[in-house]
């Protein structure tokens, strides 16, 4: 097999010296990490390598020699380099040589067999960018759905080994050729150590800040979990309002971000960063909304417009009921039942209107204070909007419940009496339909009731249909708002930004490019990082959401609507939390 030598592009212009790196025998490849320059004492080089091996568990060794001939070829250097092979015995021994005036290198790999006659092998040079490889995280494509990218400890495949080798050899990169240590090395930090003052300051400051925020947040969580909230009316209201849900979700996020534990893996770090960016964006958008609302007296305009709108909606509902009480769409309704239901619902609307008019002087104040809560985030403001819509359309919800219950009762009555009509009965013990012999008077009353219910069915069904459609409309509007909140909550903005600005950090794999070639010289390839596609980034790093998706499919929804069972589109949200 061809021997693959992975050479860092930063060392291509380094002076002559020893090649330091790791040999992977399963793939017949040598990963070169650094070049150690002359002069050096072999014992010290071996000591340094042993230290690195102990600190990083990477088996670094001297793999061969690197010769960079800037002037005319020196024969003495050649013999000196040959002699080094005897001191640092490694099988195979690589000899890379670069001459002045030509772009092509000469490479030799010698295997010292036990028999004594050395055999040579063909070498393939693969250049790689050390800094980019060090900073990138490989996302294996065959990762199982449960296992997270970057946390796989058992790396499979050759590429993962190479990524691991470079990533874990950070200890080796701490000394460079300008240090006063015993050995002078050349690698990607040879131009000088890379560091940033802002990053260092942030690291120093993050400790106390995290401690402070963690204590504050624990106080808040303790306050929200206290027994006072578990009393019946408060607990019930709390479970129904989506604002409380959203606030709790955000509180959880914040306590995760400011926890005093360091991130255990790259995945956790990305999660923290994504949550932080999401919270910051949320608050920024919320403040924007707040400034827009409080300028130009918009709150006043909104409050002034609210009561007429509620009046208008109630008027439209009254028209609708009058229409239903007449002959809607040409259908003939049962006059008595129609009048009863119609009057009942009209009275409800009258109550609702009086209630709204009672509240109207306070609406502006309430809105002003509620608008202040937008500074907690845009998601909180949207949740409050969704809750306000739910409160304002409460009468539609009530009508829907009345209509649905009536219809449901009718349907069950009809099905039971239909069975009686045919001489059958529902056996509760056996959970099946059994035949049954009825008495004559039972049959008589049963048939009477059955006919009554059948003839009253169109009226009830029509009321049920109209109010269900209205309720579905309100649910759709609320659902759209929740979808938007969900999007803001779960979009991994930090990962997307990283993919946009530093694509080499999220790697899906590598790609090779064949460089200019000359016959007789070894093949030269350039290995570059293949970044992860955007869809994979979103899929891998998306944050867990509130879980307010409807739990049932279209089929079960239609079935429930037909039988008159009440539909709760986002119930049992607590079950879906991670």
């Amino acid at each position: 097999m061809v021997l693959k030598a992975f050479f860092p592009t930063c060392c291509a212009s380094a002076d002559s010296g020893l090649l330091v790196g790791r040999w992977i025998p399963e793939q017949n490849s040598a990963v070169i990490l650094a070049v150690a320059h002359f002069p050096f004492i072999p014992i010290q080089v071996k000591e340094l390598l042993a230290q690195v091996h102990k600190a990083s568990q990477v088996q670094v060794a001297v793999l061969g020699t690197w010769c960079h001939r800037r002037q005319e070829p020196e024969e003495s250097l050649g013999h000196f380099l040959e002699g080094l092979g005897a001191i640092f015995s490694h099988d195979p021994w690589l000899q890379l040589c670069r001459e002045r005036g030509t772009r092509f290198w000469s490479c030799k790999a010698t295997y010292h067999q036990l028999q004594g006659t050395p055999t040579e092998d063909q070498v393939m040079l693969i250049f790689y960018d050390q800094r980019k490889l060090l900073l990138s995280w490989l996302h294996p494509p065959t990762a199982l759905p449960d296992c997270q990218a970057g946390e796989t400890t058992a790396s499979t495949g050759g590429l993962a080994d190479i990524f691991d080798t470079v990533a874990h050899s950070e200890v080796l990169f701490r000394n460079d050729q300008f240090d006063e240590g015993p050995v002078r090395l050349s690698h990607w930090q040879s131009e000088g150590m890379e560091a940033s003052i802002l990053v260092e300051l942030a690291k120093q400051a993050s400790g106390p800040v995290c401690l402070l925020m963690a204590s504050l947040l624990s106080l808040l969580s303790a306050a929200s979990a206290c027994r006072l909230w578990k009393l019946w009316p408060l607990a019930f209201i709390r479970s129904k309002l989506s604002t409380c849900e959203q606030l709790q979700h955000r509180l959880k996020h914040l306590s995760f971000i400011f926890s005093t534990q360091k991130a255990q893996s790259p995945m956790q770090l990305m999660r923290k960063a994504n949550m932080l960016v999401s919270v910051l964006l949320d608050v920024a958008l919320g403040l924007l909304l707040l400034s827009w609302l409080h300028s130009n007296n918009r709150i006043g305009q909104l409050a002034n417009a609210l009561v007429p709108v509620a009046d208008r909606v109630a008027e439209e509902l009254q028209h609708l009921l009058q229409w239903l009480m007449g002959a809607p769409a040409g259908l003939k309704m049962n006059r008595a039942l129609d009048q009863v239901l119609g009057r009942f619902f009209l009275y409800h609307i009258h109550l609702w209107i009086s209630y709204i008019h009672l509240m109207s002087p306070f609406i502006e104040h309430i809105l002003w204070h509620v608008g202040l809560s937008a500074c907690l985030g845009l998601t909180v403001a949207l949740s409050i909007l969704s809750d306000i819509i739910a409160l304002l359309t409460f009468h539609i919800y009530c009508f829907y419940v009345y209509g649905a219950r009536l219809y449901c009762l009718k349907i069950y009555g009809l099905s039971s009496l239909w069975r009686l009509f045919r001489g059958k009965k529902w056996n509760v013990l056996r959970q099946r339909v059994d035949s049954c012999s009825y008495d004559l008077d039972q049959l008589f009353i049963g048939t009477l009731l059955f006919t009554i219910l059948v003839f009253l069915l169109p009226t009830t069904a029509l009321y049920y249909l109209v109010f269900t459609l209205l309720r579905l409309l309100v649910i759709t509007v609320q659902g759209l708002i929740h979808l938007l909140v969900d999007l803001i909550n779960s979009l991994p903005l930090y990962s997307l930004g990283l993919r946009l600005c530093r694509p080499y950090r999220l790697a899906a794999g590598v790609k090779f490019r064949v460089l200019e070639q000359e016959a007789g010289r070894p093949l030269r390839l350039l290995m570059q990082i293949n970044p992860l596609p955007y869809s994979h980034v979103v899929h891998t790093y998306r944050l867990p959401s509130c879980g307010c998706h409807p739990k049932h499919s279209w089929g079960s929804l239609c079935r429930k609507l037909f039988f008159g069972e009440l539909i709760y589109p986002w119930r049992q949200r607590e079950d879906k939390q991670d």
Partner: protein
Amino acid sequence: MEEEKSFSDICGGRLALRRRYYSPYCREFGLSSPRLSLRSLTAVTCAVWLVAYGLFTLCENSMILSAAIFITIIGLLGYLHFVKIDQETLLIIDSLGIQMTSSYASGKESTTFIEMDKVKDVIINEAIYMSAKPRLDCLIEVYRSCQEILAHQKATSTSP
């Protein structure tokens, strides 16, 4: 060593297969599709603008014309960036792997690299995945070269 041969695809259009032997164990095959023709581009643009002008005379709203121009530009950019494949390349490197690159008309390149451990064999499946849709003779050419390299790789990997 570079060779270029001309084949035809299943619709009868011309395709060019470019073979490059970099070394005994590294080969590259490039298949280039015919470029975007000016004639079809002009035809589509004229059709869209005629429809837009017709709607404009009905509705008297100048937004329709600007919308039509916008749609044409965005549609063309989207087509060039996401749909129109200029060239497809297959690079085989012995003991390293197989790499497939598709380069789009806007310059975007999308690459997939499969390591040699994960490659069991190269077979000719129905050519519904390649956008260039070459005929069987072209595919046989590529298939033979791939099998040569794979056989060579298997021989050297089993030898001590």
